[in-house]
């Protein structure tokens, strides 16, 4: 039994999965304590989040559609992190992509459905990618830390897009800041009628698979991995660091831009100021929970999606404050961001006889 457990622990994939599961479990546990302390029944609230939400079709659809943007931003962060680039600019890249998609969707008339959707999606990705290009160039040529530049570019971009939808692009008959509706031909197809679940989720999953193939099958992915794991050695062995940084930065922000496109084409139908419900930054937690593995991001995004959908259900059906659900999410961030803390607690659990299977096997 002991050796078997050790064997399991030595497989990095299983260890990472076990770690993420345990962090999640701890967050639910700590969340329960806070909820209980606030005078509500944790069992009740978790029942509403997980059982009630997931027992209805609409609940499941809501969870999945909430998860979709998180998949994009999560992958954007994860792929950059593989190269040890911290892209904190997903929020801005998303807005930029959304604006581009909204313009292409609204102002190009009379296109057939598929080409129009394709054009709008690509416009978003390119627009997002341009921001990545800028961040990358600043990093490579001027040594500016991408953490700072990508973060600060967020507000610059949001101000610009905000100006566009408050001024030049605002329809005359509209009172709130937004762009005109996109043409019906640019709309993403709904997978299930009357829900927000569109083909965007399929695009996200396809990207996850492509990113995985990039990292495992392409020489370029090999170079990215080498740069991420040992910059110096990669440089010594003739890998162009600048090229890899630039490529990764563009790729990462293009995915974030694509997220903006899918929100416009699939959910809102136009650019609105608050199109992103903090998806950019939530993507960081999603990526971290997935141990920055592109293939795992859709799964962790769905977990966050369930929590989000659960929050709606809690809000609708009970008088429990929704903020308590955010507490659970916050705990996830804490336990993922502080691996030593989680490992320490895991160590305590491991010393309790009979707990071994539970923590190692999940």
């Amino acid at each position, binding site marked *: 039994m002991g050796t078997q457990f050790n064997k399991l622990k030595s497989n990095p994939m299983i260890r990472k999965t076990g770690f993420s599961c345990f962090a999640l479990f701890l967050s639910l546990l700590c969340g329960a304590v806070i909820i209980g302390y606030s005078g509500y029944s944790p069992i009740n609230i978790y029942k509403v989040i997980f059982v009630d939400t997931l027992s209805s079709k609409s609940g499941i659809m809501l969870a999945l559609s909430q998860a979709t943007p998180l998949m994009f931003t999560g992958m954007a962060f994860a792929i950059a992190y593989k190269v040890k680039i911290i892209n904190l600019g997903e929020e801005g890249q998303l807005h930029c992509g959304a604006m581009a998609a909204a313009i292409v969707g609204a102002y190009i008339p009379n296109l057939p459905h598929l080409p129009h959707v394709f054009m709008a999606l690509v416009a978003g990705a390119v627009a997002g990618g341009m921001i990545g290009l800028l961040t990358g160039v600043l990093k490579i040529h001027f040594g500016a830390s991408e953490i700072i530049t990508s973060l600060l570019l967020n507000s610059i971009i949001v101000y610009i897009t905000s100006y566009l939808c408050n001024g030049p692009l605002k329809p005359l008959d509209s009172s709130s800041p937004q762009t005109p509706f996109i043409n019906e031909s640019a709309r993403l197809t709904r997978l299930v009628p009357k829900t927000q679940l569109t083909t965007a989720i399929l695009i996200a999953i396809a990207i996850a698979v492509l990113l995985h193939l990039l990292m495992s099958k392409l*020489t370029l992915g090999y170079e990215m*991995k080498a740069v991420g*794991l040992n910059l110096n*050695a990669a440089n*010594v062995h*003739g*890998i162009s660091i600048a090229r890899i940084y630039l490529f990764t930065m563009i790729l990462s922000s293009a995915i974030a831009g694509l997220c903006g496109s899918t929100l416009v084409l699939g959910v809102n139908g136009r650019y609105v100021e608050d199109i992103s419900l903090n998806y950019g930054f939530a993507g960081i937690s999603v990526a971290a929970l997935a141990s920055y593995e592109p293939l795992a991001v859709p799964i962790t995004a769905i977990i966050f999606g369930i929590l989000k959908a659960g929050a709606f259900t809690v809000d609708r059906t009970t008088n429990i404050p929704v903020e308590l659900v955010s507490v659970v999410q916050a705990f996830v961030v804490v336990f993922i961001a502080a691996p030593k803390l989680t490992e320490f607690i895991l160590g305590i659990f491991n010393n309790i006889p009979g707990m071994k299977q539970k923590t190692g096997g999940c």
Partner: protein
Amino acid sequence: MALLEMRNICKRFNTVIALDKVDFNLDQGEVVSLLGENGAGKTTLMKVLYGMVKPDEGEICFSGNRVTIDKPSAAIKLGIYMVHQHFMLMPAMTVVENIIVGEETGKGILLDKKEALDRVQSLIEEYNFDIDANAKVAGLSVGQCQRVELLKALYREADILILDEPTAVLTPTEVEELFAAVRKLKIAGKSIVIITHKLKETMAIADRVCVLRNGCMVEEDILPEHTCAAELSRLMVGRLVDLEVRHPAQQIGSVVLSANDISINYGQGNCLKHITLNVRAGEILGIAGVEGNGQSLLLRTLTGLESGEFIHIKLDGVEMKCSPKVFLSSGIGHIPEDRTTMGIVGDMSIKDNLILGYHRQKSFSLYGLRRDREIKSNAIQLVGKNAIKTDSIDTPVKSLSGGNQQKVMLARTFSQPLRALIIAQPTRGVDVGAMEYIHNQILSLRDQGVAILLVSADLDEVCTLSDRIAVIYEGEIVRECLPGELSKVELGLYMTGSSGKSAEK
């Protein structure tokens, strides 16, 4: 009764047995040399004693009492102090400040430097160490830094000093000075354990020699006067090895790699002054020098990592574009000086490390797609051919021992068709057995007509392998000579820049 007894110490790292029922004794006022190959467990054994590694089994008795040492501070309390291979000093602070760290004198939050300074000063005088207590550590030589480490131990009133590979970074003169210090410490009643794999030094300084092999204590009571270097190396490796024999080049051809009047200035210790080098086919040009005299920069230049309009490097008479990619693909192999930071990607698998730098070659990459089957068969072949000890080619390379990591690096480069080879510190942290293997590999490459430039901090290595020696000091080639032309002490003087000033001493 022995001052210190370690009994039945066992330690396993996962499946590897690092220490297998090892007993170790130490008497007062004794200098013991703990001899063994890398990975034999000598450092692990001492780390157990120093509280850095927790043993699975076994006990430690100090002056007859059983003690538990679970952290270095517990060891220091008992009077045990370990001087690590890499000094733990803060360059920006003075000698005294470095010594008193963690043991600050004074009341409350007030630091009483005066008292500390007095104590340090008296220690320096007592042991006749040639150091200024108020000097900044940044300006000290390696030998002086080591003495600061010794002072740290003495300041803490240590009775047992553990020195981990103390001579690895020293010049011959500095080694002599260290040994003088060790003898003084011994007279003062201190017990000293020297971890080493160098036989000659063991013979020169030790009262008693203990030999570890594969985690077992092979012999723990050899007196140097009753043995010889060959016998010790046989005990260490388990068979006879000889590293001292020179194998001169048979056929030296035309110049393959040449650098012409290269000057770069990045400041102290990181500059090159008018370096002109020609490495010919079938010869080994050895660069001797104390570390930090421009070797790193020279290596960077010769491997294409430095570029600039004043850098001209020619391969077979053709000027090269300065880029590591170009250099590697035109057949200039590179074994970097620092394995972990430059040579390998620790978290990547063995098989992926075995193609690093050559991963864009047609045999490993087709239209940008990895050729997994070829990469795998390449790894299997190289692991087998070079006897790299691992259970799978998919394990991360960092889980291998230092010697095996080195083999991965060498196997990768040596499997390529080479014109020239820039090789730095090829046997750093590698045991005698692997050392012999690596030396033979380098020599056989040379005999195939590869032009080899060797940079090593190990003067013995430079002298045995090279067909020509260039001494570098502060970025300048101060002397070129043939092996045997100058004695090691003379070379040492050139290496420290004191050849002209030797009269002063």
